[in-house]
């Protein structure tokens, strides 16, 4: 072995030691590949870091919207049925000032466009989380297009607009609430300054205790029978009511993700179904078929997909629903 070779070995050994010393936990984890990082690094920052190049038109956005978004959000983004409305409450004056006036003066209703201060947020929202039941399924063009369509519904861009990575910064300058947020408050830093300073008075503090609000009569029953929500030791301890096997089946087959017993969700309430069909000739067989094959149109535009249930399960569910879901 030559001296040079030996020296080289020693240097290599030192390098290896240095590489190992970098990690306190050798053998734990592995380098992420560029393809893996690209697959997961989907966030878009307000300075547009992370925004993929591309474009989408308002017209294309309308197509996507009507096919994939309108059933929850309404054709014009105005729907309050499932989620809070997306469009509404902004004015041309707001676009000029960058402050949505109705946020200061208005009531409870706050639409997405009223609150939106950074356009990157809307792009990222649609891209990562929409459609609600099939998130991350839109193409980059579709995301640009849907965002363009929403902006058009809010009169922020014209109907022939094509939103792209090249003009999105200009759109940011037209957002109605672009100047509407603040980070100057004490709730961001753990050492931040609180808003209010109460004092720990111990005696004769308030001379006149004011009863400002009490639970209104009409709300007393709003959360059901409160006594069965409390531990009941000392009173007659009733054994738990057995749960209906059909309800368990409906939950297991995720029917209840879209149907409430007495509350409408994405689909009609079971009670509504019973009220509509009960007593009709041959209805049981028809509904069994509907559960198995899926359907749409009877209760609005949201379709019910085919359900993975046996004939016997479907029949049991339908009989139970028609009987009022006891």
């Amino acid at each position, binding site marked *: 072995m030559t001296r040079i070779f030996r020296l080289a070995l020693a240097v290599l050994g030192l390098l290896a030691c240095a590489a190992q010393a970098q990690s306190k936990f050798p053998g734990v984890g592995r380098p992420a590949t560029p393809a893996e990082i690209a697959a997961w690094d989907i966030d878009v920052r307000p300075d547009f870091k992370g925004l993929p190049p591309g474009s989408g038109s308002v017209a294309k956005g309308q197509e996507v919207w009507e096919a994939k978004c309108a059933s929850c959000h309404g054709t014009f983004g105005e729907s309050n049925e499932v*989620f809070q409305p997306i469009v509404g409450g902004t004015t041309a004056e707001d676009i000029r000032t960058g402050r949505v006036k109705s946020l200061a003066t208005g009531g409870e209703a706050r639409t*997405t466009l009223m609150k939106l201060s950074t356009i990157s947020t809307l792009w990222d929202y649609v891209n990562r989380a929409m459609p609600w039941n099939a998130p991350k399924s839109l193409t980059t063009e579709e995301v640009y297009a849907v965002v363009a369509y929403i902006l058009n519904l809010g009169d922020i861009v014209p109907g022939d607009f094509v939103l792209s990575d090249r003009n999105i910064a200009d759109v940011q300058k037209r957002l109605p609430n672009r100047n509407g947020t*603040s980070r100057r408050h004490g709730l961001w830093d753990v050492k931040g300054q609180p808003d*209010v300073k109460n*004092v*720990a008075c111990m*005696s004769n503090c308030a001379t006149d205790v004011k009863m400002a609000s*009490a639970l209104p009569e009409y709300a007393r029953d709003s959360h059901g029978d409160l006594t069965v929500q409390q531990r009941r030791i000392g009173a007659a301890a009733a054994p738990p009511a057995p749960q209906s096997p059909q309800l368990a089946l409906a939950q297991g087959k995720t029917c209840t993700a879209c149907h409430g017993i007495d509350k409408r969700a994405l689909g009609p309430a079971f009670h509504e179904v019973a009220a509509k069909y009960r007593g009709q000739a041959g209805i049981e067989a028809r509904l069994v078929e509907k559960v198995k094959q899926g359907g749409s149109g009877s209760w609005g535009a949201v379709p019910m997909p085919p359900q993975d249930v046996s004939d016997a399960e479907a029949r049991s569910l339908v009989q139970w629903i028609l009987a009022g879901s006891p």
Partner: protein
Amino acid sequence: MSKTELPGRIRKAPEGFLDPAQIAKVQSGRRDFLRNAFLAAGAVAAGTAAAQPPKAAGFQGESEILDLPEHSKGLGQPVAARGYGAPSQFESNLQRRESPGLTRVSAASVSFTPLQGLFGIITPNGLHFERHHQGWWDVDPSRHRLMVMGLVKQPKVYTMDDLMRLPSVSRMHFIECGANTGMEWGNVAVPTVQYTHGMLSCCEYTGVPLAALLDDCGFDRAAARYVLAEGADGSGMTRTISIDRVLDDVLVAWAMNGEMLRPENGYPLRLVAPGLQGVSWVKWLRRVEVGDQPWGTKDETLHYVDLMPDGVARQYSSIQECKSVITSPSGGQTLLDKGFHNVTGLAWSGRGRIKRVDVSFDGGRNWRTARLEKPDEPKCLRRFNIGWVWDGGPAILQSRAIDDTGYVQPKINQLRAVRGSRSIYHNNAIQSWKVAEGGEVSNVQAY
């Protein structure tokens, strides 16, 4: 037509809503009345023999003592009859529950922890509150990955096996949704502590400090100012956490209360961000990115922003300030007897430890300092107790916590003076429970 006969109303059960004459009977010792009232209300009390009134003439003793029950005379169930144990059948009243009308779809909703029935500070895993934005999943841990990237020398991927080889820590912390008590900014809106304060839980978490992972990837200490935590669920929950929080006490955790996380709480991996509102505790954590600017994500721009009276929304409001609540007696419960009662509750602060809790029985005019239970951990629930002799008259119960920064939990009118009533989030006001002469406890705002 009386109110209870209105169509569609839920009939008031007797315990919570006795009329004054009935309550007088109960308080005079006529406990049999209560049992009969339950039977009348349709409670299934199969096998429950009508007990002898304890104070009736010729009273020999209770049948519970005189007649040996089956469990004293027979053979009980074998070990491992239930491979994963469950609470007693008599505890089924304590459930996570939704607040009707709060949300339209149950996959983007909240279920509340029944604080009224819990003891100490640890929340049983099955009763931990839930908040999902696009439903929950039971993720296969062998297929779950965590990626750490951004301003790091070496972006890395970790399996659960990798993470669980690292030096772990176990710490107790509370988690509170920023919207907890949010329904009460304007007026009293909900009846019980489950709905006023039940987006609150507390666990012992086990995991690895996020700082250790950042170090393992060689993060850029000079440039790093924030990290983004991202979930693997459909909502792809993303929250910006400032680097000082990360280097202080943020964990990447896989366990709660001695077992793996529950699916509803992010199995197999979640962020634990002590003191910060629950939304920052990203579930099904798949990615941590180190960066130099906040991300302005959907849940820090469109949701989880606090609207101020002037129309400006506060972004990145994250710290859960000092707060407390009496959990018993609380709304929906009824005091059936005069005399001694243990008044108990919880206190917590996202800025540190609880130093003191005072309790008032007269709506805030006079206060007494409660006993604080152990343990005394930062950013963790603290149980308090105080004895109270109820004289049978009306009372308003309040608790007021003080943390180790000296901050005193505020009154709702003090908060509203600064923040108005539309900010939804971060309502840490003093809670008032009114005890009526009959013993019925209800939710009020008093100051």
